Each structure stands twice: as C-alpha cells, then as structure tokens.
C-alpha cells in the first residue's frame, strides 16, 4: 500500500536549516534527500497541531520532523497510524476528569469558606488585642459612614448626657471586654450597628421609631450582647477570611472582593441565629437588672418586622432571622414582671429623642 512520493521538508531538530526531501509511505515512512535517508516506524509517529493541508510529523520524543502539504499522504498516514494525534493534551477524557476535579475542588473551597472559616473566626476573635480591634473598628466606622452617605452625627448636649447616663447604668457590672463608644447618626433607617472595638452606631430613626425608652434601651442592650460575645470581630474575620479564600479560587487577588465583603458583612451584621439569640438573652438580663421593661425589645422587633412586610422600610434588622420566633423567645425569658417598667422618665426620654436637634435639616434617605 505505497502512496506516490511526495515533496516535503525535513528538519533534523538540531538546526533550522530546511532539507528538501521526498517522502514515501511504505511499511515505514521513507525520507530521502541529499546525503539523507531515513525510515521512521509508523507506530512511533506523532503529528503536530497544524492547519491542513500542512502537516508535520515526527517520531515521538524526537525533535526531528518533516513538514508536507499533501492531503493524500496525510490521510494515508492517519489510516496507518491510529495513534497519530495521541499527545493532544486537551483530549476529551482528560478534560472531563479535569472538570470534575476542578468542580470538586471549587466546592470544597466553597464549603470551607462557608463553614470552616466562621468556625475558625469564633475561636480567633477573642484573641485579637483590644488596640487592634479598636483600630479596625475605626476603619469600618469610616466605611459604614461612606456607605450610608456620611450621615451627620447627632450630639445635642443634654440628650447626650442622658444617653451616657443610661448606658453607664446598663453596663455597670456587665464586664464588657472593651470600653463602649456610642455614636448617634441622623439617618432614616431604624437600626443600630455594632462594630469591632465596642463601637455602636445608632441610626436616629431607631430612636424615632421607639415608642418607649425601654424599646430603644432593649435594642442597645442587644448590641451590647454582640460586644460581649466579640460578634463583630468574628463576623469581620469570617467575612474577610471567606472572601479571601474565594478570591483565591476565582483568581482575583487584588483584594477588591475582600474590601467589599468586609463592608457588606459589617453593615448587614450577618451573625448566626445562635449569636442573635445570645444577644437577645443578654438584652433581657441587662434590661431586667437596670430596671427596664425586658419585653420591649420584642415589641420593637415586631413593629419593625411588620413595617418590613410593606416592603417600604429598608431596615437592616431584616437580616436578623425569624422575628416572630425571636419575639416569643424574648417574652418567654423576660416573663411578665417587668412589663410596664420605664428605664427613663418621660422628661428624660423627650430630651433624648431630640438628640438630633444639633443637626439642621431633614434626615437623608439613602
């Protein structure tokens, strides 16, 4: 089954000099040129990745090759050497295995990011030195301010004095790990955010939406519960760790995802259900001890959740799970003996509600 002789070019792999040759396909591939006579065993031949009609073949593992442009010889070679294209590394079997392994690896990293990192963060958060935690808190505070559109600080002096006295009373003997630093910002979202380093940011609409001082104090006590449990630091560590891991897999090492994720985590306070329940219990205990209505937290939670159903209210508390369940739990823990108690008298509460008196204009909506 000899095919007609074909003109080709032989390269010896040692120099780039082209050697014009005549190719003949017999039992072996015969290569004949000036001062040159080679015969390559067909089963050894490997074809390179070229565009037809150009074809390049050479023995496997050798740098020598011949190039020719003849469809007939190409077809004959392919018929005689079924393994001609064997080294194609993108072969479909290899690709399927590669895809399956990559998917498995990706899922494994994903699971690590979702479950493993938070577990590490829980253990790591209490070990962070207070000075570093407070510096981080400052950085996150600045970022939160930017996200919320730099809301002005509410600092009416008489109201501030009442707030400070109230906080002192609530946190006496509370043995918080860090000193609290509480700031009120004028903003049309009813929420309080706890940041690393004992920073609590109260958005003024929370005070507006509170029907009684105990509702406001209950939310504050809940936030102190997060401070006591190092929750913000834990969330920050978990969020940055997870996004760092994910950015490795996704190949984004510039850190942009980390910065975004840290901000998102801080603002949505994506704590676990256990952390929320613990903070609720903490709130009940504080309210009970400092002479307030321990069920008021349940009342304000239900009101804010109800607002949510109308969809008009952009409360960040929405990210906290199972409002009704939480309210029931709080009421069960608090009992009925504290209902109707007031943590502040009416005069002080009215003053406190005016804490944004020092900031002119209406609250800004985001």
């Amino acid at each position, binding site marked *: 089954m000899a095919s007609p002789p074909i003109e080709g*070019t032989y*390269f*010896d*792999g*040692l*120099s*780039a*000099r*082209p050697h*014009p040759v005549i190719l003949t396909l017999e039992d072996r591939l015969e290569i004949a040129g000036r001062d040159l006579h080679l015969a390559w065993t067909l089963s050894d031949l490997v074809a*390179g*990745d*070229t*565009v037809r*009609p*150009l074809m*390049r073949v*050479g023995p496997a593992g050798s*740098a*020598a*090759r011949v*190039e*020719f*442009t003849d469809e007939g010889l190409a077809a004959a070679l392919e018929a005689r050497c079924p393994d001609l294209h064997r080294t194609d*590394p*993108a072969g479909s079997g290899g*690709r399927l295995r*590669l*895809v399956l392994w*990559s*998917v498995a*690896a*990706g899922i494994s*990293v*994903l699971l690590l990011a979702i479950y493993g990192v938070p577990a590490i963060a829980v253990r790591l958060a209490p070990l962070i030195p207070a000075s*570093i935690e407070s*510096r*981080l808190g400052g950085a996150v505070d600045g970022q939160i301010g930017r996200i919320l*559109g*730099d809301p*002005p600080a509410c600092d009416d002096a008489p109201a501030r004095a009442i707030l400070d006295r109230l906080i002192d009373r609530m946190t006496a003997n509370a043995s918080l790990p860090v000193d609290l630093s509480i700031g009120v910002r004028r903003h049309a979202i009813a929420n309080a955010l706890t940041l690393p380093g004992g920073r609590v940011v109260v958005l003024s609409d929370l005070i507006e939406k509170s029907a009684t001082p105990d509702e406001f104090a209950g939310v504050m006590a809940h936030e102190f519960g997060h401070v006591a449990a190092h929750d913000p630091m834990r969330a920050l560590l978990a969020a940055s760790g997870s996004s*760092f891991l994910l950015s*490795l*897999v*996704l*190949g*984004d*090492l*510039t*850190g942009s995802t980390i910065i975004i994720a840290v901000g998102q985590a801080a603002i949505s306070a994506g704590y676990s259900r256990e952390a929320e329940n613990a903070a609720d219990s903490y709130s009940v205990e504080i309210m009970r001890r400092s002479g307030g209505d321990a069920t008021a937290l349940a009342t304000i939670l239900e009101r804010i959740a109800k607002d949510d159903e109308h969809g008009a209210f952009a409360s960040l508390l929405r990210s906290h799970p199972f409002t009704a369940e939480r309210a029931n739990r709080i009421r069960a823990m608090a009992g009925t003996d504290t209902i109707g108690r007031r943590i502040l008298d009416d005069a002080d509460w009215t003053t406190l509600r005016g804490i944004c008196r020092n900031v002119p*204009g209406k609250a*800004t909506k985001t």
Partner: protein
Amino acid sequence: MTQPLADHARTGTERVGAITFDRRLSGLSGIAIRGFLLSLVTFGIYRFWYVTELRRYFWSRTIVDGSPGEYTGRGKELFLGFLVAIAILIPIYVAIFIATISVPWLAPFGSILSFLILFVLGQFAIYRGRRYRASRTLWRGIRLGQDGSAITYAAMAIGWSLLTLATLGLAFPFMRASLERYRIDHTLIGSSRMASSARGRSLLLPWLMFYVVVLLPIAAAFIAFLVASDFTIPDDLFVPKEGGKPGETQFNSDYNGTPIATFGAILMGTLGFTLPLGLLLIPFYRARETRIFVNAASLGPVRLSSTLKARQFYWPYIVYLLSIIGFVLLLGLVIGGGALLLHAGGTQSGAHWAIVLGMIVGYLGGALFFAVLYVRVITARLWAAVATTTTIENAGGLDAVLASSRRVGSGLNEGLADALDVGGALEVGF
C-alpha cells in the same frame, strides 16, 4: 496560507520570508465557547487549560517562513505555577495586612505599600511569564528561550517608572524602548540571540501626540482660566449645596456671567473633550510602537520589517464596540418587548419573573457572546495584523540557527503572572 512551504528555489540569504496567519479562524469559536463555559463551572480553574488551547491555536496558525509555530505548554504547568505563586503571595498579603494594622503610622500608606510591592512583583512575573512562553515555543523543531534576570527587569521597570513620574511622562517612550531592548536582547532562538535596536527617540513623536491632543489644550484652557481669574481662584467659587449632603458643593451663582465662569466652563469642556480623544489615541500609539519595535528586532543578519498601519489596530476595536452597542440595544428590546407582552396578558408576577429570567439569560449569553467576540475580533485580528505585516529580511540566515541544549524553564515561571493578573494569554507582538 499563501506560501505554506519555504520556497526552496530561492535559498540565498537575501531571500525575504513572510509571516502568515490563517484568518479563517475555524474552530476558534468552539475553543472560546468551551473555555468560557468550563471556566464558569470550574470556578475559573479551567482558564489555564483554556489559555493553553488558545496559544496552541494561535501558534500553530502562525506560519513563519513556511513553517508553523508550535506551542508545547500544558495547562497543568500553568496551574501548578499558579498554586506555587499563591503560596508565595499569601504570606506577603498577610504581612502587609498585619503591618498596616499593627503599625499605626503605616496605615495611611498601606495601599501605596501594597501597590509598590505588587508592581515590582508584577514586573518580575511578566518577565518570568515571557520566559515560560518562549521555552514552550518551537519552530522547525528549534526551541526558543529567554535568559536574563527577572529581578533586573523589575528593577529597571520601577526605576524607569519613577523617572517617568518625575518627568511628567516624557521618559515613558524611553522606558518602553529600554525594557523592549532588555526583553529582545535576552530572547534566544535555539542558541542564536536576538537583538533589538529600539530607541526611545523614535517613539517620542507618537508619544508626544498625547501631549499635543490632551495636555496642551488643557494647559492652555487652564492658563486662560488663571488669567481670567487674575491668578487667584476665589475661595467661595464653590459653596455648599443647599439641602445637599455634607461635602457636596455647587457653583456659586454670584460668579454667573463673569469671565471666571466662562473660562471655567471652557476648561471643563476641554477636559471632557480631550480626555476621550486621548483614549482614542492609544491604539495609534500601540501600533506605532509595535511597528518600531518589530523593525528594531534582528537575529544576526536576519532582520524583521513591519508595515503595520494604525487603522489595523483601530478596526477590531470599532467592530467590537459596535457589537456591544448592538447587543445591548437588542437585549433591551427583547426584554422590554417580552415584559410588555406579558404585562398586557395581565400576569404581573409572570412579567416580573420573565424579566428576571431574561436578564439572567441575557447576562450569561452576553458574557459568552463577548468572550467569543473578544477572542475572534480583538485578539485574533490584532495578532493577525502584527503577524501578516511583518516580513523577514535575509531569511536565509535563519538556516544557520542551531538548537540549544539549555535547560527548559518550568511552568512555575508563569504562575505568578496569573496570580497577579498581569500579562495576557497572548501578547501581541511577542
């Protein structure tokens, strides 16, 4: 594919060799579609194999003096290199992070510090990546290579960049030429060393176009503005906006109709006009630079010569841009029309879901479409433009190239480049 084999009739050293590229691009869309989709489902890990496939495609369809190029790199090598690079980079990131939070005075410089470190590493990685690609490139069975030191290259790059900053950009073409000389002078084909005679002087004219088109009008408008305001810009030119956010300002209406307002508006208009014009100049500069660099490259008696025109660099971008505009318009029409139809049908929630579904399909489809279009239109056409406008003078001299017994660099060389996201899959102009 006009000249698939070397023309043996003319074997004299005066012979002119051609570089051709198969413009039919058959099979390229398949590679791009598969690469995009598999990268998507494998969390991006497939990209190393995708890049390898693309390189094999482009190398094998570029025919230099009758013989096609050959890419022998493997996706696995790139992936392993990436893993090693990650292992090197994580401690660096963690060290920067810890340094910025534990040393307070360092905190404001944290981003500058990490930028500097990553810039130097990035230059290092670019050079190492090029070494990998060279060592995986064969032509007529001869392996290419690159020696030289990536540390030297990174040091040169940072030194030149600082000089460029200090000279307001005037040193930029000299930096480009100097780095090109270093790259080409350390590029080997077999055991023959290439050489580049690229000079910053020859790049100066195209580079100065940016100054003429962008900087001069801005400077002129700014000086006019300064003269109009008697070289003192009033403090109350911008006043806090009433009812606006803190830090938000508006133009003080007291200055309406004064020369300050007029020339201020001219200044802003100049900025708005010349900056996009500057962007439009980039392909022009790139084309000129590529032509000058190609013309400067040689291998012994063999010289490269390029007739690249700037319009060959503009055309792919124009086609790509028009396709994006067309696609967005079409998608908007389809989604809007579909929503309108469903809305008229009375099922409001159905319309909502249809829009969401349409947007997801449109987004994924659009991303796929543009990934394929980018490879076909921009990558392939730029590659073809550079390749087909280049000819080899004294091509007979190539016969003297001998293979080298040099050690072949490992895939670790390119991992850092991928981890740092520098250096594309295919660098046009090599």
